[in-house]
């Protein structure tokens, strides 16, 4: 069968058989090698953050991937398939172009949902960070009230350095609480130009790469989203043996960590869309 075997003679069948296995072996080796090379290149060019977000998004349950157009009433049920990157979504583009005058951002906007205050001038990321436009073209970024109640008073905060380039949906800053590191997702791509390490409701000042915030939630859809997040939180806190419940109101407590007990780590990972 093989050339080094005693009395071996080449025949067409040998070429076919050996050729087939050489091809299979080569394909397997080439596959591993190419995957290795591409991953090395991805790490070098900083694409790892995008991949982490893609992996995190794909592992989210459907309830956490509701399309924003369901919040604004244009769909009764729709799941996002574009990793919340609405600027890359054809459906979002068609809907906003088809009805530019019908703003989702007009009408009465509730200033509070289940005890969570909502600022109408802010843009919200699904990972519970918000963005506020400043006069000089920079953006302030902070953590929303529900996020604050989930974290509580952090034991430690790891800030990015001034000048660092943030990727959208990558890690903006991290907080540590009860031994758990929570990565706060950046709502925009841009360069860090300021850090607030003191008291105050913002954390980073960023000069964005693009001025477009259309991929973030804004206006009336924020309150609908926040309500769905409160419901999602409620479901995460409910013991599985209890099953589905229908709470008819109430306010989110300040100290969610105490309310969640031993489940708080899992709840934080789920709510902050951690990978």
């Amino acid at each position, binding site marked *: *069968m*093989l050339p080094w*075997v005693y009395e071996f003679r080449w025949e067409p069948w040998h070429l076919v*058989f050996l050729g087939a*296995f050489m091809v*299979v*072996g080569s*394909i*397997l080796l080439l*596959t*591993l090698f*190419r*995957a*290795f090379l*591409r*991953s090395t290149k*991805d*790490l070098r060019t900083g*694409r*790892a953050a995008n*991949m*982490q977000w*893609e*992996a995190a998004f794909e*592992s989210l*349950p*459907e*309830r956490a991937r509701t399309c924003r157009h369901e919040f604004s009433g244009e769909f009764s049920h729709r799941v996002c398939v574009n990793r919340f990157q609405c600027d890359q979504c054809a459906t979002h583009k068609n809907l906003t172009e088809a009805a530019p005058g019908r703003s989702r951002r007009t009408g009465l906007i509730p200033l509070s949902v289940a005890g969570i205050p909502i600022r109408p001038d802010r843009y919200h990321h699904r990972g519970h960070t918000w963005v506020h436009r400043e006069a000089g073209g920079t953006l302030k970024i902070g953590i929303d009230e529900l996020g604050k109640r989930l974290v509580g008073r952090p034991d430690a905060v790891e800030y990015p350095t001034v000048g660092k380039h943030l990727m959208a949906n990558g890690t903006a800053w991290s907080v540590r609480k009860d031994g758990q590191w929570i990565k706060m997702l950046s709502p925009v791509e841009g360069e860090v130009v300021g850090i607030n390490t003191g008291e105050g409701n913002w954390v980073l000042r960023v000069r964005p790469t693009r001025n477009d915030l259309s991929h973030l939630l804004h206006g009336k859809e924020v309150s609908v989203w926040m309500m769905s997040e409160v419901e999602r939180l409620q*479901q995460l806190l409910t013991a*599985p043996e209890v099953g589905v419940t229908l709470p008819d109101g109430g306010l989110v407590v300040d100290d969610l960590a105490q309310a969640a007990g031993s489940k708080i780590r*899992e709840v934080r*990972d*789920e709510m902050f869309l951690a*990978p």
Partner: protein
Amino acid sequence: MDETLLLPRGVHRAPFSRFALWIFPWVMLLGWGLYGAVRCLLWGLNETNMDNRFAFGLWIYLDLTIIAFGAGAFFTGFLVYIMKRSELKAVLNSAVVLGLLCYSGAVAVLMVDVGQPLRTWFTFWHPNTHSMLAEVTFCLTCYLTVLLIEYAPLVLKNRQFRKIPRYLVFEFELHKFMPVLAAVGAFLSFFHQGSLGGLYGVMRGRPFAFREDLFLWPSTFFLFILSALAAGPSFVLVTTRLVEVITRKRLVKLEVLNTLGKISGILLIVYLFFKSIDTLVWINSTSPASGFPAFEYYERKEFGTWILFGEIFLFGLVPGLILLNKKLRDNTTWLVGSAILVLAGVALNRFVLTIQTLALPTMVFDQFLSYLPSWQEIATFTAVIAFGVIGYSLSYRYLPLFPQERDLLQS
């Protein structure tokens, strides 16, 4: 490290103490089985009830059966990546794990059966060019490698590995090549499933198994492929349902199990059609040409016509027709029950070709031989089962095997 940090996110798993209680008896069984296997390796096949006359026994039967069941891995991959049946992604990870465990278990048993595992490389360096097993060995080795490569991204999906960027990125890039691996796996499986059937079909000295050539190979080559294709989806279906029952959780939507059952049913009917033609040709032509009227094989009570009836009708046509009926498929009891019958039919077919073939006399001085496996053989057999249960249990506990589980839990 807290063990719960290793568990997939968003799903519930039993406390570690309960899991340890589940694993413990399987580990004991594995230990007992390894003891039996080591005895065979140290003191040879005298530890078994096989001999020069009865060369195939429980182990080869086990090999053929679990390789047929493990076909679910390559076939599910083929359906998802090549045929674009995306609804089967819900069971793809589980199918890969099952395939890996089935094939690695089969290879482990072969190591004990053939003996001298340190000289395994002889098979590749000095292959027997006149044996179908040369091709089986090459294909099995390559396919096991494919399964390991397909399993690697699943391991890297573990919550803690995902936090390490280079592992996540490598898993991401490797996953892009899954269609290529699925195609290679389908190619390799086609040949080794077939060659295992061809192994029996070329045995001129065993007219019970011998079959005429169809193109290059005996008809059993193609029948083994078809029966494996029918058994694979049923095996994935039954194991998924078994895990649901044991864990008391819904892991996949019913439509997915329904689809698996339908595919299995269609392929089973196709297999039975060709099997029936093959059997008729064998009864009327091939066997008489060897000097044996077919009815002679079924004269003994142990291997009467009931076995042929069981293989084609009871464990073939009946479940095939049930699985083709949508109303019956929608009922879990009918669906899973039929899938179990399909698996029983394929297992019976492998038994017939392995054990019955050797038991029946062919030479005038031959006698009907009975064979009962020794405790060492049974121990090695149970070691493979235990290995499979332990491997699957660990994969289920620490890896995200079922993507629909989270959504079903929260709905």
